[in-house]
């Protein structure tokens, strides 16, 4: 076992973890934050996407020990003072989810995409969300939400 210390949503946190603990399980079980989901567990679906040092990554495909010293943002860290993040609000406004299981990963991937490419075209948004699967709605409303969220984030 090793002690893994990292900053999650602005707070320094640490817990014991064995070397084979995946980052997603560390976040969910060791840190008790269950907003980040495990969908496929085979690196395909993107439900587990979190931000690590400003880049979206699949937390089921990274070891907790590899995240030592990093800054992690999960879906729990998006809202501030009870106000939804603009991308969360856009998903709500555009009915971009049904069951919501994929949404935490969709949100983080979308925010990463829009932060790096504020004027992303519809095609770029679709290409940029290739790592996230939704099994309910199809992607039309998700793409609409990302466009709306992007406009709002530009302010």
């Amino acid at each position, binding site marked *: 076992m*090793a002690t893994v210390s990292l900053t999650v949503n602005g707070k320094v946190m640490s817990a014991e973890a*064995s*070397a*084979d603990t*995946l980052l997603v399980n560390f976040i969910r079980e060791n840190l008790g934050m269950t907003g980040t989901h495990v969908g496929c*567990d*085979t*690196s*395909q679906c*993107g439900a587990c*996407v979190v931000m690590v040092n400003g*880049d*979206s*990554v*699949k937390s089921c*495909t*990274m*070891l907790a*020990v*590899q995240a030592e010293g990093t800054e992690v943002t999960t879906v729990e860290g998006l809202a501030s003072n009870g106000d939804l993040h603009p991308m969360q609000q856009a998903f709500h406004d555009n009915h971009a989810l049904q069951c919501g299981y994929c949404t935490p990963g969709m949100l983080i*991937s979308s925010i*990463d*995409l829009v932060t790096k490419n504020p004027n992303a075209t519809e095609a770029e948004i679709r290409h*940029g969300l*290739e*790592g*996230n699967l939704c099994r309910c709605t199809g992607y039309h409303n998700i793409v609409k939400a990302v466009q709306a969220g992007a406009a709002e984030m530009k302010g």
Partner: protein
Amino acid sequence: MSEFNYAMASSADDASTQVKGTGDGSLIAGGMTLIPSIKLGLATPTDLIDLAGAGLSGISVEGTTVTIGAMTRHVDVASSKEVVNAVPALSGMASGIGDPQVRNRGTIGGSVANNDPAADYPAACLGLGATIQTNDREISADDFFTGLFTTALKEGEVITSVGFPIPERAAYVKFPNPASRYALVGVFVSDGPMGIRVAVTGAGINGVYRESSFESALSGAWESATLDGVKADESSMASDIHAAADYRAHLVGEIARRAVAASV
């Protein structure tokens, strides 16, 4: 998941020493193939030696060569202005690997060392006549890729960088499997200091290879019409649930033709 020990290496030589001292240890770069393989029980290393702290990332363009450190991520190659200017086919190839999250972790060294028969980087290395630099020696791409998931790397040998000679023109075109984004067929073509090269991934029964019949034809005239109607040898094509050998043989010709048409 099987249990393993984990340690960070401080340099390529340190990683080599550490991994040689383990029972059945493995180096880990971005882990985009290795971690899923461990989860599925396809790999059961006793130890993982992490190259993340070994100082092996970075891109430089000097003279006629683009040199990319082994731990440089796909996203960094895809977005590097230096690479875009020097070899746009290479940055474009990197921008099409997997999905954004894979590109945010996956590395050139990991991809090259793994030599997945449907991976993109082996085609870029072979198609540009790259040189793979290790902690011990230089290996030409022509000698490096030796078969499915096998390379010329010796036990404990660590890739430190890959040098790509800048071509006069080149392109990579991929016909991706829509689910995995791996190449059903991918063809990297180039014309430059390493001669005329046509490297094919995703199709060959022994992994990445050079399609020498296309290369000979293109040395007569570098234009897409030269490859009108050509096919690869069906008997050397892989065949699986995604595509039969005759379809892959056809695709190799068609994708190579498109790559020549797209070359800049």
